[in-house]
């Protein structure tokens, strides 16, 4: 049963990704991105990565979607007319083909390596407390996240703030 759910989620996430990339309307793209993140969170949860699923859900589905929606709403009066659907679809028509190609490549990898999409992996997850992992072994990543937030903030200010 979990395997069927994972496969359904994976197919839906590909569809959501395509809508996100091909949509001519920013708001639709933002909502599709939120859907993609929610599906990723479900997959992570089924694989036993509960904390990662929680972070994905809170940050990507919650925070990022709200930020994008606010930004789209605020910039709407000045933004140009949205692309018409056919023009947008035509522009990204190669994308589904590319995804099918990547899918086939991964299928070949699966066949040759015997790798299977088995959620039994969840039972192999070590029961190391999240607190220990977060503060004990991934401190470099915490530092990197702090720097990344700084870089993101400065980049937004530099690229989008009106110059004095």
């Amino acid at each position, binding site marked *: 049963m979990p395997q069927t759910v994972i496969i359904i989620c994976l197919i839906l996430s590909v569809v959501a990704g395509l809508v996100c990339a091909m949509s001519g309307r920013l708001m639709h793209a933002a909502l599709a991105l939120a859907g993609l993140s929610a599906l990723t969170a479900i997959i992570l949860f089924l694989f036993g990565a509960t904390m990662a699923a929680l972070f994905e859900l809170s940050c990507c589905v919650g925070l990022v979607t709200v930020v994008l929606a606010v930004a789209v709403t605020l910039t709407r009066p000045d933004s140009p007319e949205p692309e018409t659907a056919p023009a947008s679809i035509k522009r990204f028509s190669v994308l589904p083909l590319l995804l099918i190609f990547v899918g086939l490549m991964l299928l070949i990898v699966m066949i040759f390596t015997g*790798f299977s999409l088995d959620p039994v992996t969840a039972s192999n997850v070590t029961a190391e407390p999240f607190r220990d992992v977060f503060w004990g072994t991934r401190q*470099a990543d915490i530092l990197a*996240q702090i720097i990344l937030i700084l*870089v*993101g903030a*400065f*980049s937004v200010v530099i690229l989008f703030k009106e*110059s004095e």
Partner: protein
Amino acid sequence: MSASLASLMYAFIGLPLLAVAGLNLAGRRLTRRICRPLGVFVGLAQMAVAVISQLLLLQYHKSSVSFSQFWDMTVSDSAAYLRVDAFSLVALFCIGMAVAAAFSFKWFDSEHNAFNFTNMALLLMLGLNGAALVTDLFSLYVFIEIAGLCSYTLTALYREERGLEGGFKQLILGALASVLILIGLAFIFMECGSLRYDALALFFSEELPLPILDYLAFLFLIGGFGIKAGLVPFHQWLPDVYESAPAPVSILLSGIATQMMGTYALIRIMSELKGGAADPVADAILLLLGLITIFVGALAALAQKDMKRCLAYSSISQIGYIVLGVSCGNAFGFIGAMLHFFTLTLGNTVLFTDAAAVDLATNTTDMERLGGLQKQMPLVGVTNLIAFLSNAGLPPAVGFWSKLLIIIAVWQSGNGFIAGLALVAGVLTVACCLKVQRKVFFGPDVEELSGVSAPRGGVVVSSLTLSGLIVVAGLLIPFLLRMLQAQGLF
């Protein structure tokens, strides 16, 4: 000793972080005035700390020092998440050098842009320092992403069409590279269950022959870091970015950022992961990519009309030598690659600083509109020649030793013909050097440039100092190699 040495290492994180904080917390009037001196100071201080750390490592006969938290400096090597060794110290020294050079002259007319540049350059430095210090492949990836994000923003700093286009190209290819690297890391994690360097070295030394998934992981990692390094055939973005970026940004990107994000990561991964195990497939791919990159880069450089584009293609060719050294998988190869990393950082920093000097004086880097500048700016002409000859591998410059080691390594790995080809390719770099010298500094005088005055101040001081370092380092290399041997590197 370890505790005191480890506490010194925090300077590599603390210096740029405190500088960014100080810059943004200081009063507006003061902030705008201290941008350049602050950048130069942080760069020079990092160079000094790197040299002192290397001397301390030698004094205490240690090959590396691991460190984690301020409150627990006695952490064991297997638990530490930051570490410095000879190679990371060379990288950290180079980062400091490129940052100091990028801040050494006044480029930005607007204080607003100077302030933004300072912030992003220091954050870029922080990202690169992190990449040099980590002991885990995933952390390396995260820090490289930080550096990547900074370089996209820096390229588009002016928010003009060309800069935005360059930044966008970088962003798209950077995203593609990230996907490839992540897939490679996922495959490795599936096989090994860890991404720590020491765990991977152990796994790869015991696991022979390698599972097919690991070969695929190597392919993805080579593809991903190949894009970041600008290896042929993933190189098209690099000249566009170097040309469109403001001069100090070009110095940072060509001098250190591209090297760290691509070549440093490749050297580190191949030297750490292989753990002495033979891996002919990855080696053969790297050998082929390296050789193609050397020739395509050098030939394309000869066809360019813009000085910065010519230098960009020439640096692509030099990256090929580094990859060639890595592909040998022997000690000479890794030492040669590491030394050529240093050579290229020095050479590119001088060459792009000289391009900035020419641009400052003439408002162009189009070689068709330049000529006869040797009379107005003789020092720039000389430093440009020294840096080019070093990149070409001529003695007594440092580039001679790095190329010699790489070619010996290729020869030792049983690829005598390829070693010969790599040697011959050096002639193409010399030809490129002669072309730039003839078109920009010698050749017929251009009437519109008759009133041009030589740039003064930081740009010349920086270029002269680094050219001197090229020659001095070249003379000291035998001693430095003995020092690395004493550290047990080869």
